[in-house]
């Protein structure tokens, strides 16, 4: 029997740790409820309000984006879960037990990333597809314009919404690796996604157009909007690559710091 552990063994251990705490399931339930619940709520409100809408409003109506509005809230749930995948170990001191069992710290990070990536990719995709389908069914029942997965732009918007949530899980994880404390990590995460866009809004408009399209939240918008909106945002493909690069850089810095620091 070969006794030298590999990345597979470390990943199996990390996956076991991930699924043996209740917080994981509470977090995943929050993700599901936020995304699907808000899709139901918003689409029902729009449906009941439809007859009061004027022609211009009806023309501006986006059945896909409105059904995926829960993603905006779910991004905070996934960020917290990503962060806690590492910060909870620092909070309890369990990180020392973990690092004694897996002294190869880069391998440990890779294993944690694999667990988060696979789990959140699958769950996010299921959730956004469900939100989309439920939303469109509600629109159809009220004879409103609706989207369909056979339309490649709509399909792409839905898939990318799930990809966005997956990447943001890893952004939360990366910030957690760097900062190590749950509360500080969540503060920074919320600042980046929510506060900085507000600050940018107060900049002179000539600056805004240069800055705002680089913000993660606007990259997310660009990724999930089926129609190309304005010159002030990236194409969906560019936006996806940029957000992936952000994620790699943040997790990379966190990994580097982990290998340098005392535990």
């Amino acid at each position: 029997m070969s006794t030298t552990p590999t990345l597979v063994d470390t990943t199996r251990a990390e996956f076991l740790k991930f699924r043996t705490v209740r917080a994981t399931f509470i977090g995943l339930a929050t993700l599901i409820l936020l995304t699907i619940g808000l899709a139901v709520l918003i689409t029902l409100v729009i449906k009941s309000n439809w007859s009061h809408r004027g022609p211009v409003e009806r023309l501006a109506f986006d059945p896909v984006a409105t059904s995926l509005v829960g993603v905006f809230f779910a991004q905070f749930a996934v960020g917290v879960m990503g962060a806690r995948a590492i910060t909870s170990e620092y909070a309890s001191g369990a990180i020392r037990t973990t690092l004694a069992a897996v002294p190869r710290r880069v391998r440990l990070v890779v294993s944690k990333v694999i667990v988060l990536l696979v789990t959140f990719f699958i769950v996010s995709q299921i959730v956004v597809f469900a939100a989309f389908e439920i939303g469109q069914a509600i629109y159809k029942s009220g004879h409103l314009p609706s989207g369909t997965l056979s339309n490649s732009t709509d399909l792409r918007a839905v898939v990318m919404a799930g990809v966005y949530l997956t990447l943001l899980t890893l952004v939360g994880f990366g910030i957690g690796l760097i900062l190590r404390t749950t509360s500080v990590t969540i503060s920074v995460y919320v600042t980046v996604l929510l506060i900085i866009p507000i600050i940018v809004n107060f900049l002179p408009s000539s600056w805004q157009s240069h800055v705002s399209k680089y913000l993660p939240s606007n990259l997310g918008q660009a990724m999930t909007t089926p129609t190309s909106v304005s010159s002030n945002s990236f194409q969906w493909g560019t936006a996806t690559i940029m957000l992936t690069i952000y994620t790699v850089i943040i997790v990379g810095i966190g990994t580097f710091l982990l290998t340098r620091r005392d535990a």
Partner: protein
Amino acid sequence: MLKIDHLTKRYGETLAVNDLDFEVKAGVVTGFLGPNGSGKSTTMRVIMGLDRPSSGRATINGQTYHQLKTPLREVGALLDAKALDPNRSARNHLRALALANRIPVSRVDEVLEFVGVASVANKKVGGFSLGMSQRLGIAGALLGDPGILLFDEPVNGLDPEGIRWIRDFFRSLAKEGRTVFVSSHLMSEMAVSADQIIVIGRGKFITAGTVDELTANAVGTVFVRSADHVRLSQVLTSAHATVEVLNENGLNVIGLNSEQVGEAAFAAGIVVHELTPQRASLEDVFMTLTADSLEYGHKNVEAHS
């Protein structure tokens, strides 16, 4: 074999470990003794690859911890019993460690049984008492059946029965040929549980040896009881001894051995009822040694002025 090789560790300005250099032998229980804050835990963290040494290194069978392919099969450690995710069950905690080191998962129930926490294996460890957490930590250390075991202050939080159990347990591990390295700030504990003792103070090596060796080199005292202890005290003081008067006509004599005390009393015609050499306890030795290390800098200053 566990080897500490000119190990120095700084945290910013603080020198936690200062050029420690020693080997820990297999087959005996080695005590790692020093006051709180003397660098014991830091040394153990460096051995476990958790903290990076500022210079020097710690090696396990010639390799640093980071070089070990299957660390838990070579070294088992209990550093901080409460350093666990409180929301995970004891069994799942150990299963994760086993998976990461390719240790058969069947081993988990074996070690849980052995340390006596099998009945609460599926309970969250957050609800464990310190004693139960200690036992779980020991189970984790034994998981990979390692040849080297480290325990940082293992008796903390244990009840007397637990303390006895752990002493016997250390002995049996050593008897199996393993290296057992146990830190403590309690000299009394080390005196009964360790064969070999390494004493450090302020991060520096002070001395090493068996309990007997350490106490033999220390200056003992003589207890003498006499009906005329007042005159005996005068006689002994004039023979350049330091005399403390205890109750029950007893004197504690420092600076003379029991023969010298007896002869002095005989020469002065004083009847002696009891004459007992008092061996220095390990605790006395420890206090003297660490006190010296604390005063060292002070003496230097005086020499230069």
